[in-house]
Structures are given as structure tokens and as C-alpha cells.
């Protein structure tokens, strides 16, 4: 009981420390600055931010959103999903299908109805699941619905039969692996290994123009901020508190009378939808979606972003994702061979020495400061476990 209490204490404490509002402000200011520096400054100016940097930042923010999705379920509900890459990729594919249809007759074979890869597989008509994807709103609906439905189905089955912990993690991994194999198949109708690429425009705006790129970047930043605030709010509601109670003692929560599986399913669906949105924003910015996104390693990497930032803090997950990916970009440029060593060591060291991630470290340091000033006894903030 006492551990539950202290856990709850530590949760609300760290939550109080996570400073969502200031973070959102910083994020939006940086976004606004970068965007205007790209569009308004001349190219030879010192303050010019290149389009390369903008797309890079956009990509990081999509990853950050994905990390947010994982943090919502792992940090707050203790569900370690090793298959979130699947929801991300599904959202991406939904967006990719829309963008493919937008190409119209500008494809290499000039077929107004069929994407190039279908012409080349000798398909005569559009498969049923491609119907309607030329409508933006349908595609956007699919971005939410497909990951959401899959998560609902999977969650409903899994949580109802109380598949938890390690088993659940392995099952999610199997799920994304099965999807990986399926999407590799050319018969599936998603372009096989090559995936979907060569996009031209979105809603009539040229994807190669700087304006569109910056707009996409800004939308990503706004979306991330919005989802961050929303997630924070959800966690402060009664629903969120039950979620945390489930994390800390599922049986107890169940004995009290909560239908824990329902709570978990809906949180899982919410998280999958965030991942889907992240994927949908990712695809137009990087210009390709292919089955590689389903690979189990990608999903595990997401978890490490969250772990590095500090799980159960939302802001931490976002910072973790941005930092690790920035390090990756830099590292792979300097010493490509060393990156996997560094990533591997990060996994080990973070789990061993930083169970609460960077945010936990910050909180710890602050505690120590307070202690030094007030000489108060340590209130054991770092004892929580998921």
C-alpha cells in the first residue's frame, strides 16, 4: 500500500515538474523562428535555415510524437508495446496512399487511375482498399481509424484475457513482424519492398516547394503541442488516475471495481492513433513509406527514446526522441561503425543507471539542491517502478 502511495506521490510530483506549458512555448517559438528564417531570409544570410534542416526538424518532431504515444501507455499504464512502429507505419501508409492517388496521370506510365507499381504488376483495376483514398478526408479518417481499429482489436483480445507484461510485449512484436512480412508481399497491393514514393503534391500544394515543407513542419509542431497538452489533460482526469492505478497495481484496481481492461483498451487506441498521426505527418516530409518502418527494431528504438528522456513524463519522451535522433544524425556522419555501439551502450546504461531517464535526473539534481539548502531528508523520489 505504501509503495502504491509513494508511487502515486512520485507520479504527481514528476508530473508537476514536467512543465508542459513552458515546453510548448519553447517548441512553438523555435518552430516559428526556424520557419521564418527559412522563408524570409535570403539563402546566403547567416540566419538562413536550410530546407534540409527544416525537413530534419520535421522528422524529429514526428518521432517525438511517436515517443509521446509510447510514453502514454508505457509510462502511465505500464504497457510496454514493442510494436508501435506498426501503428506509425499504418498511419503513414494511409497518407502515402492518398499522396499516391494525387499523382494521377503524372506517374511514369501515365495511368490516371492506377499507381505505377500496379501498372507494372499488370493489375487492371484499383483494389477495394484503395477506393476513396484520393479524398483527403477519407485518407485522414483512415490515418486514425486503421491504427485505432487494429489497436482496439488487439487490445480487446489481449487485455480481456489478461495478457500482460512480457507476454504482451512479445505479442506486439509479433504483430509488427507479421505486418512487416505482409507488407513486403507485392500481392498485398502496397508496393512491396519499394513502398510508396515519388509523391507530387498534397491538397494541390507542391510537396517540393519550401512553403509546403515549412507548412508541414509547422503543422507537425502544432499537432505535437496539441497532443502533448491533450495527453497531459487526459492524465489529470479521473480516467488518467485510474490508468496510473492500473500501472501500479492492476489487480487492486480491478478488485476495487474498475473494468481495467476497458481503460487499457481505450488508452491503447488513443496511443495508436497518436502514432498513426505521427506516421501521416512523417510520410510527406521524408517522401517515402515502405515496410522497413514495421521492422521490430524500429519499435524497440522508440522505447529507448522514451527511456532516455524519462518515461511517465510526456515532455521527457519528446526530448528523448529529439536528442537520440539528433545524436544519431551526428554520430552516423562522424563514425558510422560506432553508432550501434553507442546506441547499445545507451540502452544498457540508461536502464541500469537512469531508470527515470533525463527528466528523472533533473528532478534528482533539483532534490539534491533542495536538500542542500534546506537539509531536509530525502523523500525517495526515485523508487517508483513500472
Amino acid at each position, binding site marked *: 500500500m505504501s509503495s502504491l502511495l509513494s508511487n502515486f506521490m512520485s507520479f504527481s510530483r514528476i508530473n508537476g515538474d514536467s512543465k508542459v506549458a513552458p515546453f510548448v512555448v*519553447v517548441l512553438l517559438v*523555435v518552430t516559428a523562428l526556424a520557419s521564418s528564417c527559412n522563408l524570409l531570409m535570403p539563402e546566403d544570410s547567416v540566419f538562413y535555415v536550410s530546407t534540409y534542416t527544416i525537413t530534419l*526538424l520535421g522528422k524529429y518532431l514526428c518521432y517525438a510524437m511517436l515517443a509521446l504515444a509510447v510514453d502514454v501507455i508505457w509510462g502511465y499504464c505500464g504497457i510496454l508495446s514493442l510494436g508501435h512502429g506498426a501503428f506509425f507505419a499504418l498511419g503513414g501508409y494511409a497518407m502515402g496512399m492518398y499522396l499516391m492517388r494525387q499523382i494521377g496521370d503524372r506517374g511514369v506510365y501515365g495511368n490516371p487511375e492506377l499507381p505505377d507499381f500496379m501498372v507494372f504488376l499488370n493489375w487492371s483495376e484499383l483494389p477495394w482498399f484503395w477506393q476513396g483514398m484520393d479524398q483527403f478526408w477519407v485518407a485522414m479518417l483512415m490515418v486514425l481509424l486503421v491504427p485505432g481499429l487494429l489497436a482496439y482489436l488487439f487490445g480487446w483480445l489481449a487485455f480481456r484475457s489478461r495478457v500482460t507484461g512480457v507476454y504482451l510485449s512479445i505479442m506486439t512484436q509479433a504483430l509488427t513482424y507479421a505486418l512487416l512480412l505482409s507488407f513486403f508481399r507485392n500481392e498485398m497491393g502496397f508496393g512491396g*519492398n*519499394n513502398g510508396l*514514393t515519388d509523391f507530387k503534391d498534397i491538397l494541390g500544394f507542391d510537396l517540393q516547394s519550401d512553403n509546403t515543407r515549412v507548412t508541414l513542419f509547422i503543422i507537425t509542431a502544432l499537432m505535437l503541442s496539441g497532443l502533448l497538452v491533450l495527453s497531459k489533460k487526459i492524465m489529470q482526469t479521473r480516467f488518467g488516475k485510474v490508468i496510473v492505478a492500473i500501472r501500479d497495481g492492476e489487480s487492486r484496481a480491478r478488485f476495487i471495481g474498475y473494468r481495467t481492461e476497458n481503460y487499457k483498451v481505450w488508452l491503447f487506441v488513443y496511443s495508436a492513433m497518436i502514432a498513426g498521426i505521427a506516421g501521416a505527418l512523417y510520410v510527406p516530409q521524408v517522401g517515402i513509406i515502405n515496410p522497413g518502418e514495421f521492422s521490430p527494431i524500429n519499435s524497440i528504438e522508440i522505447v529507448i527514446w522514451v527511456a532516455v528522456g524519462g518515461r511517465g513524463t510526456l515532455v521527457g519522451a519528446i526530448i528523448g526522441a529529439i536528442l537520440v535522433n539528433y545524436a544519431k544524425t551526428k554520430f552516423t556522419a562522424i563514425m558510422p561503425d560506432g553508432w550501434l555501439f553507442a546506441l547499445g551502450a545507451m540502452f544498457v546504461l540508461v536502464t541500469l543507471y537512469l531508470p527515470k531517464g533525463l527528466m528523472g535526473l533533473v528532478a534528482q539534481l533539483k532534490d539534491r539542491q533542495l536538500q542542500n539548502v534546506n537539509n531536509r531528508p530525502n523523500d525517495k523520489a526515485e523508487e517508483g517502478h513500472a
Partner: protein
Amino acid sequence: MKIKHLVSGIALSMGASVLSISAMAADTIKVGVLHSLSGTMAISETTLKDTVLMMVEEQNKKGGLLGKQLEAVVVDPASNWPLFAEKTRELMTKDQVDVIFGCWTSVSRKSALPVLEELNGLMFYPVQYEGEESSKNVFYTGAAPNQQAIPAVDYLMNDLGVKRWVLAGTDYVYPRTTNKILEAYLKAKGVAAEDIMINYTPFGHSDWQSIVSDIKSFGSAGKKTAVVSTINGDANVPFYKELGNQGISSEDIPVVAFSVGEEELSGLDTKPLVGHLAAWNYFQSVESDANDAFISQWKAFTGNPDRVTNDPMEATYIGFKMWTQAVEKAGTTDVDAVEQAMIGQETENLTGGMAYMNKNHHLSKPVLIGEIQDDGQFEVVWETEGVVPGDAWSDFLPGSKDLIADWTAPISCGNYNTVTKTCSGQNY
């Protein structure tokens, strides 16, 4: 507050990296190298990166190009397809390279292509591929299907009297296209549908028991049978092992492969494989002065006397030579000028004879068929009479038989429909 510092720190360092671009002066010609140095494709691509570096070094020893030194800019797209697009953009805008040598898989090329076309870059792609593409910004120095698959099938049909065909491949775009072309080609040659068996397996497939046993029973129908293999990379070792163990020797059912070269064989015990075939434009075992020189240069450069050379390396070599010639001809590294100067360029093949750059950005090269030897090398058993011009759009696919690529005026188009006289799908 900490967060604020972090974020602003990131923003600052990004700014710094932007700054450094404008600080760089243009006193060298920059050659971008876009090959995966980590991840699954590193096995194959690292070799090509080293080849480019070797060529750059050699060119610099000769005094560089247009009086300037060449400078190689190496990036690592880490076998991650979206990263190919990102790194291409990095090379083009941040490093401002004049040319890129890179990519191996089709999907990596497809990923980089829109960026190349948007920023008007120039890339040399050195690997055999499925065709069905011709971009203004890419030169394809590897083999198109008609420079590898079709001659190989001709050889099997005419010289070995093969009547029954197994088309086995990994399930991705290159095998799919190649097999489609071959299927149409074989049918046009009068092969009945029941004499063609098509099979696709996933990447890295390791359990070949059932498939090999199917091939065996397919091949025991009394007609000479051959396997045309577009099986990729890692899946080959277990495939050949299973063939050997199930007692299928090259005299019974020869396998001709399009993705197995010297480098792949170096990871394999080749004894059970002797007599199986491969079709390429180059084999290390071909005897010519240029090849001897290239091999010894390569061994010296890598410091490893056991390193082998292979076809994509020759393609890189030819591409690089032609690019230097074209730059000299154009007198500038400007992409548009070099692109036009490239067409009609000739350079010596490592196997003797001349390679010629056609209007469709594909090379004319000889095609060789080699048999695997027990030392991991190939022995040429057949070659085409002259050179074969690479065909960007296959004549055997219904979607592309009317398409041609011609980058000279007045057509200047990568996919020009000769029936409707229109040009489609261009991004420039």
C-alpha cells in the same frame, strides 16, 4: 529551464551547421558517396564506397579535374530508405557536391530520386536493376534486364537445350520485373505456361527444403530444366546448400543467378556450387590488362590480397571514368552541361572493348555468362558477340513496350510514348 537550454542548444548547433556551409569555398570538386556503411546493405555497399574513394585518389594523383582536386564526401544512409532521401538532400544542399555515386537497392534509388530531380543533382547508379526508369538526373551504369536476364536465358535455351524453367526470386521489385519480362520472353519463344514455374520467397529466407524439393520434382519431368534465380543476398547460401544436399547438381538443373557475384561467393563454400551460372557484365577472372591493373590497384588500396572485385565495382569504375571525361568535355561540373556531355561518352571496359553511354542514360556493355568454380571465381563460358545497349523500358512488358527514353533534343524525355507522342511522369 533546463529544457529551454536544451532546445535552444539544439537550435544553436543546427544554426552552426548551417553557418559552416556558407563558409566553405569552392576550390575543390566534391564527389558525394551515398552508400550504406551500416545496416543490412553495408555488406555490399561498403565495397562500392571504397571503390569510389580509390578512383578519387587515383584521379587526384593524375592532377585532379579541371585543375582542381577532387574531394570525396562520404555519408552513411545506414540501409534506411528514408535516410537516402535525407542524405541526398544533405549532400546537395549542405555539402553542395557536384556529383553523387550511390545507392544499391531499387528502393534506395527510388527514395533519393525525387530529391535529385528537385535539386537537379547528378547521380551514378552502379547496380543491375529492373529497368522501367530513366531520370534526367541519373546515369545507370549497371545492367538493365536485357543486358543480363535475356542473354542468360538465350544461353540456357540455345546452348544447354533447356525446355523447362523455374523463375525463383525474392519478393521485391527487381525479381518481380525480371521474371515478368522473362515470362513474356519465354512465352514469345514458344515455351508453354506449364513449363514455367514462378516462386517468390521473403528476404533472408532460410528454409528452402520444400521449394528445392518442388524444383526437383518439377525438373524430373523429362525435359531439361533450369532455375533462373533472382534470389537476393543472404537467402542464397541456404538455397545453394539445400540444392547440394538434395543432390541437384549443375548438370541436372543448372541455376543461373543475377545477384550472385564474387563478393557473395566469398562467404560461401563453393564446392557444391561448381557449374552453376551467373550472368554479369564483368567477372574478376576475365583476363585483360585493364582488369589486371584494376585488381592489383584494388588489392593495394584495401591492403587485403584476398579482396575480390565484382560487377557493380566495374560499373562504378566506368561511371566514374565517364563522369571525369564528361566534365572535361563540358569544361564545368554544371549538371546540365555534364548530363549532355555524358551522352555518347565512351570508356574502356575492364573486360576489353568499349562501354558506350546511350541517349537513355544506360550503357552499352557486353554480357558474360560464367560458371562458378571451386575457388569462388567464375569462368566465362559464353559471351555476347558485341555490346548490348541497355534498355530502359522493356519491350516485353505491356505497360512499357511503347515507351522509350531519349535525353537528347527534340525528345528530351525519360519516358516518351512513341504511340501517343507524349512525355509523362517528369519532375524537372
